[in-house]
């Protein structure tokens, strides 16, 4: 329909006549912009179109049928008139008396349907007598052609040939022969009415008439007009009645409009009437069912949007919303509230050591504790990975102390059981009291975060309440790290440290582990232990990894020695990049270095967690020449099972194993086994944290390929050779 209106408008725009065009365009605009269509009107429109169609059809059929009847009637009348004129014409052929002629012809004046009548001689050319009604001008009334005369003049037919020629819409020309007959010779003796006596037929002339039935046609058209007007009026009445009926019939449906509109506007506390007509009742029931389902889904969505799926606590987004509301309330003079920030101390260790499932379990249990201890009206939330927050309403500093202490006490009693291990979990609590509502939510969050760091600095399982002027810069807190790290990345300020690896089997070449550092004041650097959690929390690790790779490539490029190989630690976040091969290829091209100069390290835990995702990446990058090392192998769930079908070039034996190598026989057996199996798999081994010469000797004895540690060479910002 809309497309039709557009087409209509396009046609209008091409029309001449500015005034009319404007008016029509206005009309079409109004039609186009008249808002949503009504079902009742649509039904009525369809009925109206249908009625128009039927009306047109009826009138057309009526007109056609009546015309057909008239034409047939005129033909029959024509035949009768030919017979009559045949009889009337006898004097014309039988006598030369002009009076008789006039008498015969004058008879026709009483019959207006005869427009022209002509009596022709036997040749069909000469008019013996003719009659013409008034001053009528008959167009195309030409003399009979030879062909027609020949056709009419046939006497070897049972009946006379009559030719009908329609002249326009209301005239018909009829031509017929005039016959005389005589009974055959000797046919009179024993004349029988029944027997078919031969008769001799002779044509003595022709009758040529034009019948005018325009009056009948006019009458017909007039009557048809009346009839069509009556039919149209009846149809209008019918449509009007139909409109009432349709509205009446659709009334139950119309009643659904109001609840459905409310529903469409987001209200789900709507009930649709499900009584009355069967069909409507079914719709009502269906809608009510749908509304119930919507309510449930809405609740589920609300839960999903505002809550953390793992712990069931409110999520960060919802918490911040509520925090803002509370700040506004307090700003309007409300009673003060407190924002608690909880940070688990050993969550990363649990996650790395026991896996994510264990980490998740820990989070669920912590959340359970928070829920248990939280007052009914307070709001607890999982703010980030291992960070929880609590908004305690209507509290004073004393109450804040009380709450914080209760949480500390609770955690002291808490023990986390995993893989048969009993683990004591601690967390630090930072609290800020919102008593003026003058700052934004993130400011209060930074205050709480700063308080957490202060609590951490004091030792585990403690809490700290933020106090203005007495607290350190928020930049020192986790919240402050974000800006700092972003700044480092933006200014390409990462610092690379290098720790060399020595070949225990006299291998050639120079291998270094590249270590990430951040610049600090006084030409000092910050080690990863300080910024890595924040960088991971803020999702910045892949950017750091990318920058380290680029810088390492640049260094290798400047060295121009293909024997120099760098081993780089990559985070899990780096492998979430979609374009790792392209990125690395681009770096190689930019700095004119080869992939064989790079070894990428991932911890065993990282590999195990993302085995399926990493396998194709490792395979593709190995194909290009990059090599991989599994770091901290043997620390957790070390297993050779996955290494068999995993493209790994090096195993870096976990430092705890190396540290206890000299003292613990089981460790030695473990290391030996690792080395032997690795050798069997054509994987080279690297020993970390080698602390003395005795250790080097043992490692050589076990067949370890490389060793690194402060004993060999401490990390430095300068590339140096290891002590041999």
């Amino acid at each position, binding site marked *: 329909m809309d497309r039709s209106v557009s087409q209509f408008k396009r046609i209008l725009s091409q029309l001449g006549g500015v005034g009319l065009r404007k008016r029509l365009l206005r009309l079409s605009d109004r039609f186009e912009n008249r808002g949503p269509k009504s079902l009742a009107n649509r039904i009525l429109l369809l009925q109206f179109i249908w009625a128009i169609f039927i009306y047109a059809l009826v009138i057309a059929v009526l007109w056609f049928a009546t015309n057909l009847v008239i034409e047939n009637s005129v033909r029959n009348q024509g035949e009768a008139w030919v017979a009559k004129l045949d009889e009337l014409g006898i004097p014309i052929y039988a006598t030369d008396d002009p009076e008789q002629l006039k008498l015969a012809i004058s008879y026709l004046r009483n019959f207006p349907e005869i427009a022209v009548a002509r009596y022709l001689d036997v040749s069909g050319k000469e008019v013996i007598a003719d009659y013409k009604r008034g001053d009528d001008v008959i167009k195309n009334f030409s003399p009979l052609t030879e062909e027609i005369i020949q056709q009419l003049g046939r006497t070897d037919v049972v009946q006379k040939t009559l030719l009908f020629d329609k002249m326009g819409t209301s005239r018909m020309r009829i031509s017929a022969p005039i016959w005389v*007959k005589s009974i055959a*010779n000797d*046919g009179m003796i024993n004349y029988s*009415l029944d027997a078919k006596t031969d008769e001799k037929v002779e044509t*003595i002339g022709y009758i040529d008439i034009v019948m005018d039935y325009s009056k009948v046609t006019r009458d017909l058209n007039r009557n048809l007009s009346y009839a069509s007007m009556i039919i149209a009026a009846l149809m209008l009445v019918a449509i009007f009645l139909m409109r009432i009926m349709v509205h009446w019939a659709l009334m139950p449906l119309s009643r659904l409009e109001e609840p459905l509109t409310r529903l469409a506007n987001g209200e789900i506390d709507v009930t649709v009437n499900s009584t009355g007509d069967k069909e409507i009742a079914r719709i009502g029931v269906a809608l009510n069912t749908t509304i119930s389902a919507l309510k449930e889904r809405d609740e589920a969505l609300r839960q999903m949007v505002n809550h953390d799926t793992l712990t069931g606590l409110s999520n960060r987004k919802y918490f911040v919303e509520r925090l803002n509301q509370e700040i506004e309330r307090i700003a309007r003079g409300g009673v003060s509230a407190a924002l608690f920030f909880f940070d688990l101390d050993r969550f990363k260790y649990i996650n790395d050591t026991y896996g994510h499932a264990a980490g998740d379990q820990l989070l669920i249990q912590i959340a359970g504790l928070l829920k248990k201890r939280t007052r009914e009206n307070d709001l607890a939330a999982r703010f980030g990975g291992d960070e929880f927050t609590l908004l305690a309403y209507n509290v004073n500093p004393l109450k804040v102390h009380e709450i914080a202490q209760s949480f500390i006490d609770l955690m002291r009693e808490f023990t986390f059981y995993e893989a048969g291990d009993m683990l004591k979990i601690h967390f630090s609590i930072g609290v800020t009291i919102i008593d003026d509502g003058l700052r934004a939510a993130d400011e209060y969050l930074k205050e709480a975060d700063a308080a957490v760091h202060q609590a951490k600095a004091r030792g585990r399982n403690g809490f700290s309440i933020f106090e203005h002027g007495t607290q350190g810069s928020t930049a020192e807190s986790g919240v402050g790290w974000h800006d700092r790290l972003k700044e480092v990345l933006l200014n390409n300020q990462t610092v690379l440290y290098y720790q060399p690896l020595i070949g225990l089997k006299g291998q050639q070449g120079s291998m270094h582990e590249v270590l990430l550092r951040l610049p600090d004041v006084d030409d000092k650097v910050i080690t990863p232990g300080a910024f890595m959690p924040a960088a991971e929390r803020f999702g910045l690790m892949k950017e750091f990894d990318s920058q380290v790779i680029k810088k390492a490539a640049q260094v290798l490029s400047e060295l121009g020695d293909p024997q120099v190989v760098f081993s780089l630690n990559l985070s899990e976040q780096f492998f979430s990049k979609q374009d790792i091969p392209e990125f690395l290829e681009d770096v190689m091209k930019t700095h004119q270095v080869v992939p064989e100069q790079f070894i990428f390290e991932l911890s065993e835990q990282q590999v195990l967690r993302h085995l399926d995702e990493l396998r194709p990446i490792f395979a593709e990058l190995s194909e290009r020449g990059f090599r991989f090392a599994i770091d901290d192998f043997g620390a957790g769930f070390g297993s050779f099972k996955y290494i068999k079908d995993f493209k790994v070039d090096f195993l870096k034996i976990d430092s705890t194993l190396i540290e206890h190598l000299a003292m613990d026989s089981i460790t030695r057996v473990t290391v030996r086994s690792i080395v032997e199996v690795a050798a069997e798999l054509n994987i080279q081994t690297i020993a970390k944290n080698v602390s003395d010469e005795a250790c080097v000797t043992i490692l050589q004895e076990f067949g370890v390929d490389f060793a690194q540690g402060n004993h060999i060479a401490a990390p430095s910002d300068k590339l140096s050779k290891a002590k041999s």
Partner: protein
Amino acid sequence: MISMHWRSIILVSGLALLQSCAQPEPKEPPVVEIAPPVIIVKPPVVEPVVEPPPVVVAPPRVVILVSDRTTAYSEVAKALAKDLGERASIRYMKGNQARNIKMLSEYKAEERIQLVSIGLSASVAAKTLKDKQVIFCQVFNYHGHGLVSDKHKGVSMLPSISQTFKAWRALAPNTTDISIITGPGFDKMIKTAQAAAKKVGITLHHNVVNSDKEFQYSYKNMANKVQGYWLLPDNRVLSGSVLRDVMTFSVRNSKQVAVFSEELLNLGGLFSVASDNRDVARQVLKRLEQGEKEGDMMGPDITYLNKVDLRINSVMAERLNLAIPKQYTKYVSSPK
């Protein structure tokens, strides 16, 4: 008791009749029929005084040419053959007129021969035998076909005109004007008829027309003048449709119509008048005898009949309020 003399006459006549009946029908091509022997009952012989015996000249043979096997023709032929005895022979015409004429050419050389032609086609064929005496009959429009000549004469097809008007007068005493409509060529006959009509107090009007249409027109035009019409069997101006039309017109307008065929009584004719076949045969015989005696065909071109075969439509008579006289009740015929 019937005397032996009459018994023998009846017996012989019966045998003769049986023989004639047993005679096989002539087959195509034309078969010559031999007339049954005629038994002549002689009166008692009176011895002549002394008279020399007259010279006996054998009468000419008579060939009866019949147009077709229509009853009206063959009955006349049979009656003639019966009367003429061995002299007569009957020949039926074929459909092809040229063959008929060729067939008749064999009689051209025959000296002592008379011909009777019954019906139009036989008469037209016989017209070619100009030197022979020919009597034609059962032809209405003889004038149109030029059948009359010095040696060719005819017997009218019409029944007795005087008898017809006599019967009409008896049936409709009040009738004063009657019309006859024919094609051209009947002036003499019409004059005879007008004279006969006048004798019974009827004025006979005559119109000459050229086609069935004119007939129809003339018929209706005269309706105001006459109370009745005599439809003559002139095929030239009659057609089936016109016959039906004028008969219908007559019934509607209560006109008395004398028709030429009994069948037309069904269409509303008051009475039908037709020729009597034996009367026709008798008149033909008379003309033959006349020709034989005089050696030439003297007398009128057409000999009129003396009798009429009358049939009265009682229904129409009643409708026209006409009382059928007692002496005519035997002619009453109810239409089918």
